[in-house]
């Protein structure tokens, strides 16, 4: 089990959350300006970092807010959780 510190509700069990994958992927402002390769990169390609990774989580069984978690993928240690909108 993982304890995830929801920025709104405090630490809760991982069963209350859903994982949303890599954080900080911005939807292109003008998708038509992208060629197929660049669009496919936005659509499909995700990093799977060994070490600290920024990822999106949502507190599905709680406040239903999305937020960003910094997690070490090796130790599963969660270094930080922050509300949406603050990009590094």
């Amino acid at each position, binding site marked *: 089990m*993982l304890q995830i510190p929801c920025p709104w509700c405090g630490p809760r069990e991982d069963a209350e959350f859903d994982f949303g994958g890599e954080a900080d992927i911005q*939807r292109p402002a003008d*998708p038509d300006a992208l060629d*197929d390769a660049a669009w496919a990169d936005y659509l499909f390609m995700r990093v799977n970092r060994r070490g600290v990774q920024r990822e*999106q989580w949502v507190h*599905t069984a709680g406040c239903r807010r999305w937020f960003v978690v910094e997690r070490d993928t090796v130790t599963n240690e969660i270094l930080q959780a922050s509300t*949406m909108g603050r990009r590094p």
Partner: protein
Amino acid sequence: MSQPYRLPRGGRIDRGAPLQFTFDGRTIHGYQGDTLASALLANGAALIGRSFKYHRPRGIVAAGAEDPNAFVQLGRGARAAPNRLATVTPAAHGMQVRSVNAWPSLDYDVMSLLGLAAPFIPAGFYYKTLMWPRRLWPLYERVLRRAAGLGRAPSGPDPDRYDYVHARCDVLVVGAGPAGLAAARAAARRGARVILADEQPQPGGSLLASAERVDGVPGHAWAAAAAADLAASPRVTVLPDTTVFGLYQSNLALMVERRREQPGDAAGTERGARTWRVTPRRIVLASGAHERPLLCANNDLPGVMLASATAAYLHRYAAAPGSRAVFFTTNDTAYRAALDLAEAGVPVAAIADVRADPDGRLPAEARARGIQVLAAAAVRRVLGRRRVAAVELCSLDGSPRGVVECDLLGLAGGFAPALHLHAQAGGRTDWDPALAAFVPRRSNGVHPAGGAAGALGTAAALRQGAQAGASAAAAAGFTADAAPAPPGGGPELPSAQDAPDLGFQPYWVPPNALGRVKPQFVDLHEDVTLDDLRLTLREGFEAVEHVKRYTTLGMGPDQGKLANPLATGVLAELQGLHPAAVGAPRYRPAYTPVALGALAGRSVGALSDPLRATPMQAWHQAAGARFESVGQWRRPLAYPQRGETVHDAAARECLAVRRRVGLLDSSTLGKIEVNGPDAGEFLERVYVNTWKRLPPGRCRYGLMLGEDGMILDDGVTARLDERRYLTFTSTSGAAEVLAWLERWLQTEWPELRVYLTSVSEHWACLALAGPRSRETLAAAGTDIALDRQAFPHMTFRAGRVAGVRARVFRISFSGELSYEINVPADQALHVWETLLECGRPFGIAPYGTEAMHVLRAEKGYVIVGQETDGSVTPLDVGLRRMLSRRKDFLGKRSLSRPALLRADRKQLVGLRSDDPAQVVPEGAPLVDAPSRRRPLPMRGHVTSSYHSPALGRAIALALVSGGRASLGERLYAAAPDDRWIPVRSCLPIFYDPTGARLHV
């Protein structure tokens, strides 16, 4: 009563409370306080089971959870419990206990002939022998499963009750031995909330099995008093009979608390258990240590036991594990057991010590008592058929030292910490050279203490326990000053005896000089021998995890508690490596077998999944509806009348809607209110079509795509007013769509002033459909003008229906004139009943989902999840005209990716079978021409298929490669019984292609 091996006095048993149970039909006598194992030993029953692979006779090896042999079957019928460990199961009056792996009986087991075949059942046997020919594997498996039975499953649903407890505490102490008790006291005194869990019915751990004194009183008495003091504190929860069986990340501990027998319980009464889910801030691991066995030939015969276990049976249960003992040891601890046994009147014939010069205090005492001590000696072989009869001793250089008659051999191979929980949670370990064992490294969550930390002896355990308890409490935020009121009397550090120095000398693989006598078992449960390990290494499986998987070492229900620590040393010696380089196989939950019922808790039967009900659920039930599961809903499939099949009923209901009027409960549809000044802009971004210009009061069918261009959901959205829309989603997509919309709002477009509210449960939805629905609605009473001009197709009106506030949508999923009437859920049943009553003159019929499916298929309306499967675009289903060219929307860019524009993509078409009566099976593959060739290229598959009562013929929808460009082509649908059904493709609309019936 005949308990020939029961000692006349002593033990933690209640001689005033005798009891009886049966073992394989034979009556066993015991006392309250006995385990099944101790009672069996007291009755002289050495043989307790047959081994897993070779069906060799096996006896009791240990006095605790580490025993690899003592698995028995309890009870009968639905209460049958396989895999119960006799060494930790309290004996109770009237129990029915059976041995496992024996057929036809324990004494005469047919399968033991397998032992003769042992040379032909080597390591990796399963992988090597039984894989070919492959088609015989089901037969092999059946025979193997019978031969390798581990007891029998219950014959019916478990009648016992199980429950979950969710708890938090500051410090969880695992084990109520001296270390655990001291830790719990230290932590509680500092103000921490403590849970103290122990698998035994009584606290004390190792103190129960020795004659040691603590604070001047017998150890067990001190433990009982200490536990009682702790239990009296409001901050401490003491849980006996509770096994911590799993430890996970973030300190999640799972424990099962067995229900203690209550006064007045009848034999075979409800048992059950509670499963605790605890997340403490810190854990003190005081789970003790397990003694290691030693290798010699036939080291699996009943009567071969851990030296520590012989003392445990003696002190705790007053049961003599034999009548004449020999010990085989690598250290001083065996001498204590030998002296205790001799003191109790069980003669000790010899002690074979591998050390050249055992000269400690205890060996001296043993010699003084007249016990023969052989230095630099080992047991070469155990002799006997169904139990130990004698042992063959020799010097380490191979010279014989005689054959000594005995019926008990105590093995003392040193101690290994029980670090299973620590390892389960991913904790690291270090090699302790003095112990020749892995000890847990202290980590953020876990504080090991006592035997679990490699400390031997009560004094060291008490010291370490007190330290660990204090440091765990401090780490959880509790320091000494914080809590003035100490629970538990007595000093924080009670006085006790220090253990003698072990003087341990490793003895893993018997020296070659002893000859390779066989068989020497490393893992008794899995029947893995020393030769198996040699062979495995020769075949190249060297990593300890490979050895484990190839031989099944440590994979039994005992989890290799005795085998793994021994195997590490053996594998290291065989490979000439340091044991730390070999490592230990990873332990996995559960520490001891857990009943499936305990894991399920209350989540069985009706409670396994919540059931969602519409306001009309009871009405449907009373009307005799047949139901289908749609997610957590149970929707009426059809309402069969007397003598009707579901199929008949659905056909009748279809015709009622086409010719007269029908009423459908569609309350399960998802409903989301999209509210705010930017609601229109938001909908434009998530739907393929436009919304901002939709006037209030009008409805529009919308299509939602994933960013990959695939259809995600569909449904009608109505504009309630200037800044408020109501979006209908599919029944199954309701939660997913809300989550999807929320995600975009929160993560990508936080600047949009939009709020989403699910109103699915607030509004019931009654779909009144058919040419006479207008008259029916009018008859039910409404203040809404219903004529065609005032209330046209694809609009909505608010008003009252049957006296109830309502939103009425003129939208249709059947192709008929239709009103979807939304009313507050608590008044829906009244409206439903009024509509049916008022519709009677017009021939109204309630209809179910089967008729709904047929009606929409006649019109070619897709169902997301039936015609689509996450790989279907709007272009594929012919909805290109819906796509807005003027704006961007989610998934739009993907629709111009080359792969989604290919002409050979599967596209939605209709199918007519040549024989109008022939309904093709749903899911049937479609091919150009029947052929025996395999693989036969598929053109597509049937997604929906029904008999259409309105058309009097079979109709189907299908996804066919390049299907839109070649309408009218001949295809064949494969039916399961090797038949080919000829069909012809057509436009996917069968009924009222112009939509004239919608606009009446």
